[in-house]
């Protein structure tokens, strides 16, 4: 086979990547050139959310385990990267009780983000093995309880996180370009992971645990590796987020944020990278639109009360509607491929695997 035809086959096989990455870059360039600063902000935030959702997809989408702790790993990465890179002066003012050893730390942002990801991964490796043995409802509830443990520690350990108070003064680093590059890398990593042998084994364990075991897949081990990889990317996403937001508190890594991430993944379809991508796009647009409505209604004082929480309430209804209509999400378990409309391949993944 000639090199050219091999390249053509390869690019046809992986057309999903191009279909997702090219529009992302084009939209980014357009907004960078012509967009208002508000739009620029929204797009940067969108790219950061995309990294978080893709890392959530890596584990949750492929293993079928509802991973509540995910936002906790994002938080670990955010705090780690913030502590590593913020100037000692700022830390000693902002976090009065911080351990002196931590105050002294001061390194460039990129290695700080990397180390943040590594710390999240190591943490996942420590707590993950026992958790991965539990399946179904017991697994869900223990992961949920683990998120609460994370939250309690983040709000109470004021020598490190400044407790429930805001951690501020994180150097700004994440511009649209940085976030865009991050999102592109995340798409490639998540895609590669899904198509890799590990990802395939993980998907097999999701579709039928016992059948997977019977062909020799060590389900616990496969989940364990998936969990760690997902936490690594989540931690880095947290770092990227921290250098965009620059001040945050433990509230940002709890239920309501997890709900948004889940909504993004589930509405699009957690079984595929395309689903995660579409869901994030859709939810970001819907959320910004609803925020505008909420703001306008509150500012115009047409109602005798303020409508806080409208965004979340509408989001929840939307999510239920989509779950009723298409339990596998809008895209479902299949990736989008070129050509866009063709006969479905005879091998179908489980459609209702959220």
């Amino acid at each position, binding site marked *: 086979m000639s090199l050219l035809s091999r390249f053509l086959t390869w690019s046809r096989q992986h057309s999903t990547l191009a279909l997702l990455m090219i529009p992302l870059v084009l939209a980014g360039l357009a907004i960078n050139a012509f967009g208002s600063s508000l739009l620029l902000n929204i797009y940067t935030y969108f790219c950061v959310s995309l990294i978080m959702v893709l890392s959530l997809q890596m584990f949750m989408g492929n293993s079928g385990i509802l991973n509540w702790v995910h936002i906790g790993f994002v938080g670990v990465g955010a705090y780690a990267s913030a502590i590593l890179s913020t100037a000692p002066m700022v830390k000693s003012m902002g976090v009065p009780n911080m351990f002196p050893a931590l105050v002294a730390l001061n390194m460039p942002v990129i290695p700080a983000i990397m180390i943040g990801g590594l710390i999240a991964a190591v943490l996942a490796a420590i707590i993950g093995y026992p*958790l991965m043995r*539990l399946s179904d*409802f*017991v697994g869900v509830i223990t992961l949920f309880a*683990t998120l*609460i443990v994370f939250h*309690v520690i983040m709000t109470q350990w004021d020598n490190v996180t400044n407790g429930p108070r805001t951690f501020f003064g994180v150097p700004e680093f994440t511009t649209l370009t940085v976030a865009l590059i991050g999102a592109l890398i995340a798409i490639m990593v998540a895609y590669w992971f899904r198509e890799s042998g590990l990802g395939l084994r993980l998907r097999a364990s999701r579709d039928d645990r016992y059948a997977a075991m019977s062909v020799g897949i060590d389900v616990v081990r496969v989940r364990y590796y998936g969990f760690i990889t997902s936490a690594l990317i989540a931690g880095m996403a947290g770092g990227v987020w921290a250098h965009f937001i620059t001040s945050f508190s433990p509230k940002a890594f709890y239920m309501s944020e997890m709900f948004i991430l889940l909504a993004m993944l589930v509405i699009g379809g957690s079984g595929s990278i395309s689903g995660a991508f579409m869901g994030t796009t859709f939810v970001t647009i819907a959320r910004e639109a609803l925020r505008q409505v909420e703001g306008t209604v509150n500012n115009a004082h047409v109602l005798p009360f303020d409508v806080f929480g409208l965004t979340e309430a509408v989001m929840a209804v939307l999510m239920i509607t989509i*779950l009723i209509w298409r339990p596998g999400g809008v895209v479902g378990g299949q990736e989008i491929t070129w050509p866009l409309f063709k006969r479905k391949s005879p091998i179908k993944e489980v459609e209702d695997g959220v």
Partner: protein
Amino acid sequence: MMNLEFMINTISLGSLYALLSLGLVLVFGILKLVNFAYGEYLMIGGYGLYFSATVLHAPWWAMVVFGILAAILTSYLSELAAFRPVRNKSANALLVTSFAVSIFLQNAVLILVSPRARAVPLPPIFSQTVNIYGAVTPVRNLLIIGTTISVLILLSLLMKKTVLGLAMRAASDKFTTTRLMGVPANLVISAAFVISGLLAGISSIFWIGRSASVDPVTGAAPLLIAFIATVVGGMHSPAGAVVGGFVYGLLFNVLSITLPASMISYRDAFMFVIVVLFLLIRPEGIIKGGYTEERVG
């Protein structure tokens, strides 16, 4: 008489937790749904109490009825509108739905009432204390114990002696076969949600009774307690839920006493770590269920 006080306290706390967990387990048994919206039924029950007291100026017994009815109605409506259409989809779809219902109810209250806490005027009996052989304890602790005992008796009568109870027990063992025997699925599931709402309503009175106020996130803490208690006790039987509730109450009180003051704010973290470690040794909980099907078709 520290010990008697500790005992009464633990038993009443355990009773409340047992009630909470029981409501969660009834639905779980049949639908295999871990219902994240369960805490919100309790929260709506609390708002039922609040509105009947402040708007309707109802007497205490009417408040109780109103609160419980609000919780039952919420539970039933959530089943009808959200859970029924996704019932035969994947387990995760059902879970995410229940989480969305929970978020929806919280924010609906946020919009319609207020994000701030509302004081719930309760009858004075809730704040009075009595002296039993030297142990001083709030009357509501004794009320909880009494209520729990009567609820447990009534519920076991319902489950053991009535056709509906028989159908529900059969459905939680093998749902498909139960349907083949001519039991309507919707009826059994709705009944489970109604009873679950009833239990949430009853616990809501005592839960709200402790702080005498209600806000949109009131449901989070009891939900978590019910989760952990059922997992510890065993999710496959009502008995497991009750045992889990008492064990959790005991653990909570013991940790509250033994932890040094500087560590007390980490109490929840300690508790969950203990629970996770326990589950590693015994993932099925204290009480092992009998035969159970993995999922409802």
